């Protein structure tokens, strides 16, 4: 099933707030996360491995709480809260790209300054990413092997500097091109990401989750 970016952002934000402040996790808290994961079962390998990787850091935190803080219950609470939120968000957002998020925030009517900055940042990430790839490749063909020494740190600092210089030139060209087309700090996108029928299912799941937690049903 496919969700629209706006619905994903809204549902994920609300669900995160619902779970992050819980002092005790019960099976009913997992309804939304499990439902979304089931609805996105076709992306299972993608989000499953991402969740596994993300768990490395939280396992470290939980282990220190358990071993040094001597509180197994709190370690488990952190682990469950984190995993519920990550399972829901990873399942909802996998398969989306940064442009989708721009349209999502635009649809949610967030302030123009934020959405325009996000739009430019998304464009520049692509530019910087490509420039960085080119420069890393040029270092590789010159047999550069990073080590723990001043030469490596200086080379990487110069790489970062050149990345900034070249990206700034490209960024200024893009800004000038947009200004020539009448840009005055606001964008008017015409290529929206529409709402999908699956969004209704996600919204219903979220409402059900809300009733379960705050309605006193469990």
């Amino acid at each position: 099933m496919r969700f629209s970016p706006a619905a994903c952002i809204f549902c994920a934000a609300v669900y995160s707030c619902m779970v992050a402040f819980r002092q005790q996790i019960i099976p009913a808290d997992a309804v939304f996360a499990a439902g979304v994961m089931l609805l996105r079962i076709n992306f299972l390998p993608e989000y499953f491995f991402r969740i596994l990787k993300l768990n490395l850091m939280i396992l470290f935190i939980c282990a220190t709480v358990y071993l040094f803080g001597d509180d197994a219950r709190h370690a488990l609470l952190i682990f469950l809260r984190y995993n519920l939120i990550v399972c829901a968000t990873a399942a909802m957002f996998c398969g989306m790209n940064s442009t989708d998020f721009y349209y999502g925030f635009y649809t949610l009517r967030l302030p123009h300054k934020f959405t325009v900055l996000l739009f430019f940042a998304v464009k520049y990430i692509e530019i910087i990413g490509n420039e960085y790839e080119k420069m890393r490749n040029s270092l590789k063909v010159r047999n550069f092997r990073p080590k723990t020494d001043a030469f490596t740190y200086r080379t990487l600092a110069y790489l970062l500097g050149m990345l900034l210089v070249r990206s700034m030139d490209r960024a200024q060209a893009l800004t000038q091109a947009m200004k020539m087309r009448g840009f005055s700090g606001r964008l008017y996108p015409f290529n929206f990401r529409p709402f999908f029928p699956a969004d209704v299912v996600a919204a219903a799941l979220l409402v059900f989750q809300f009733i379960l937690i705050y309605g006193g049903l469990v």
Partner: protein
Amino acid sequence: MHISEGVLSAPVLISTGAAGAALTVFGFYKMKTEMLAKTALMSSLFFVGSFIHIPVGPTSVHLVLNGLVGAVLGVCAFPAIMVALVLQALMFQFGGFTTLGTNILVMALPALAGYYLFRLGMKTAGKKRWALFFLTGGVPVLLSAVLLSAVLALSGSRLYDTAKAIFLMHIPVIIIEGIVSMYLFNFLNKVYPDFLRTEYEN
């Protein structure tokens, strides 16, 4: 450096979230339209910086770059870092919605120290300038590590040792970031001095 969802207590999340949100709104208010391209560029560099791994002995660390963002943008570092954190949270689930304000506070507030240290560095010369450029990169990461440990420790006594461990883990990053920044600012100052000008506030 990101604080994950579900770790912090509610009072810490709410208070740091409100402070982070207020500072970001102030940053947006101060950001001129002409400053948009530079802010977005630094935001994307902050985003890409997390993929630049630098070897330290048998392991590697990634750059935080909040000192660089602060030095170039000043108070506009808040919106720049906020946008990068939003994208990281959505694309990779690093951080999250409830910890967004806390993460902004932890990473963007120390960026202001980078701004002042860099201005100071530009007024000096020789070895003193190199030392201040080192501090421009290192001090914001040090302050971020301190803030990160503080919010963890404030979330309950059970997290004291986690806070200590996380602070110790950041020591190599502080040194590496300082060394890289020292070379980087010197390079930018020679190659593209206009980039480091700060005529951006309303």
